[in-house]
């Protein structure tokens, strides 16, 4: 039996998955079918470790960690059955870049709801360049899946054979067909936008604001200016957080104080903080503190 390949999937796509195909019998693997047709048993992820807590005890540690990528957050848990991953996590201090190879897990608290997470097999600290390489590779893989999905939607009756004839691999062709049946008309625009945002994440010329398309013709100029203003303020607040951080994060109250001196009111500061948190530029190591990622 050959080893399951490790899929390159962004958090936003992974977390939107709600179709599990359980293997029948003992040795047949289970798969998670993503909205874009990734047929995941194993996954490879590189991102920023933002939270890492032992929710077990000293003798029986259970490490729960969060890893963010440009699109969202992966959740993972390593316990006694993942000794190597748990040991590696025990040594890691967030924030840092980590790479994870693991298997998917699902949790359904009620009918129709499904949460997915990663059960890590191997975790390791890596350099920023490895994360950038992963983002690029995952963009390519996501675009492949989008084109498989688009080809499949063009077919009257998409089958694995037809998709393989077009040139897609068997696992992707299978995943695409399963996905189309389960997720129905999936909106590909969202995933295209996600992929181009992830690409912009790699390109410094877009760094001031991943959500603003400065060079696209804007019919409403005022909105654009406002948005640009927001982006400038976000950059400003981000630099305040960085400068007030003595190693364990900057106290939010101090940042607000500093903001006031620059003419930004508390309410606006809070909304800027939320925006920065959403975009993954900062995180809260403990309540009331902010840290740049």
């Amino acid at each position, binding site marked *: 039996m*050959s*080893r*399951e*390949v*490790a*899929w*390159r999937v962004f958090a936003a796509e992974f977390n939107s998955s709600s179709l599990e195909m359980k293997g029948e019998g003992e040795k047949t693997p289970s798969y998670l079918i993503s909205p874009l047709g990734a047929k995941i048993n194993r996954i*490879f992820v*590189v991102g920023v470790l933002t939270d890492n807590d032992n929710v077990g005890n000293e003798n029986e540690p259970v490490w729960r960690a969060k890893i963010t990528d440009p699109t969202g957050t992966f959740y993972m848990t390593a316990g006694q059955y993942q000794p190597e991953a748990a040991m590696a996590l025990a040594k890691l201090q967030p924030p840092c870049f980590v*790479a994870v*190879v693991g298997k998917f897990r699902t949790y359904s608290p009620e009918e129709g709801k499904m949460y997915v997470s990663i059960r890590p*097999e*191997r975790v*390791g*600290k*890596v350099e920023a*360049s*490895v994360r*950038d*390489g*992963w*983002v*690029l*590779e995952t*963009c*390519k*893989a996501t*675009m492949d899946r*989008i*084109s498989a999905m688009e080809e499949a939607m063009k077919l009257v009756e998409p089958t694995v*054979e037809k998709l393989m*004839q077009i040139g897609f*691999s068997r696992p992707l062709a299978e995943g695409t067909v399963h996905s189309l049946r389960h997720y129905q008309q999936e909106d590909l625009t969202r995933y*295209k936008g996600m*992929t*181009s945002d992830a*690409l*912009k994440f*790699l*390109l*410094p010329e877009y760094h001031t604001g991943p959500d603003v398309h400065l060079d696209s013709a804007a019919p409403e100029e005022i909105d654009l200016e406002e948005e640009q203003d927001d982006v400038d303020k976000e950059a400003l607040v981000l630099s305040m957080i960085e400068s007030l951080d003595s190693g364990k994060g900057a106290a939010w109250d101090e940042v607000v104080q500093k903001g006031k001196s620059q003419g930004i009111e508390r309410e606006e500061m809070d909304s800027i903080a939320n925006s920065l948190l959403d975009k993954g530029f900062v995180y809260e190591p403990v309540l009331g503190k902010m840290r740049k990622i």
Partner: protein
Amino acid sequence: MDREELAPHVEELARVLGEKADKNKIAEELEKYVNLYRVTLEWAKRDILKKMGGNPDAFNDGSGRKSVAELTGDEQSVDLLVKVLTVNPKTIEVGGAHKSIAYGYMADESGRVQYTVWETESVQLKQGSTVLIRNAYTKEYKGTPQLNLGNRASVEESEEILDVADMPSGGGSAEVKIADLADGMNYVVISGKVSRPEKREITASGEKKTIVTGVLSDDTGSAEITVWKDAELKDGDEVRIVGAYVKSWKGMPKLNLGDKAEIQMLSKGTLGDLSSSVPKVRTLEDVELSGGAMDVVVRGTLVDVREGSGLVMRCPDCRRVLQKSTCRVHGKVKGTDDLRIKSILDDGTSSMSVVFGKELTEQLLNISIEEAVKITTEERNPEAVKEMAEEKLFARTLEVRGMVRSDDFGPMLIARDARFLEVDVREEGAKLLTDMEGFN
């Protein structure tokens, strides 16, 4: 249609009717229906079957009409609408007599299949024509179905146009690359450069024979070749081989040139400069499907460092890795130090075991074996070098060149060259973003 043309259909009707069949009567009826009443052959056969007490649905029993992709390899009787891509006549010996057959490829929109015509008198195929084949049968050979046109088969030219690409002409069969070679392939046409040719004397069924072995390379890789007769091959010769077959050894495809195979000399430089070139990068999925390769370049992420990696002790006599200073064969011995990394490489299409030997381990970890021994002793940790490999290699992207062999545990790449791959994410990212905008 004359009697001869109708004969296979008579045979078929007789087969369906079984005991109660009178071939002369069937032939008479069929001739009347087809030639006098001008009923289509298909309807004529159905009607006759009904009239003579047979079940007309019997024609659909086994397989009926199928596409090439639907063939399983055990059809007793199958109809296909296909385009004849190649026709190669061949003479074989059957019970001391010579018999003409023909073989080649046919295809429809779903795929391609190899065929053999066993009765070239009654079935004549023309390259490039589209034909409706009836009552062919299939056999499985090395996992792929092969189509056979026996004495029951009939062929009608069809006006239908099939969207099938022609095979590249010349020699009848399509020319392939080293990377395309797979176990069980026949009638292979391939061009490449010869290296390390060597004549050998062997004894085959009591007779002395000279054979030639060597290596053939193109821009996708290399494969060992064996010419099962004497041939003049020199190092650096550029050749085109027609009619070779492939047999794999430990998953690695090897080219064999039997009596029928032909070697054509090409003028120097036809294939470009291959001497220093590195084979094209292949996906792991592609290599896995080949089963192996003599020389391959792949790129992937190192996703696991396995047990048995790092500093190991080997038996001075047999090079086996020692367990607690003990060799499985030679008992307690004074071992010699060695370095190796056993790992898994994954490129998103598939994954493969990769083994790096001492030199590559030293290079990748930037450490000498002496330093490795020192660290292991100082830290009193036999796993020290393995841990170092995990730290330095996990999640890194590598380009690896080497040989791929398969056994019960799947394919394994034995590296002979490796380097970290540094990708310019900004440049590639910008390019991809431009592509995306076209794609939106």
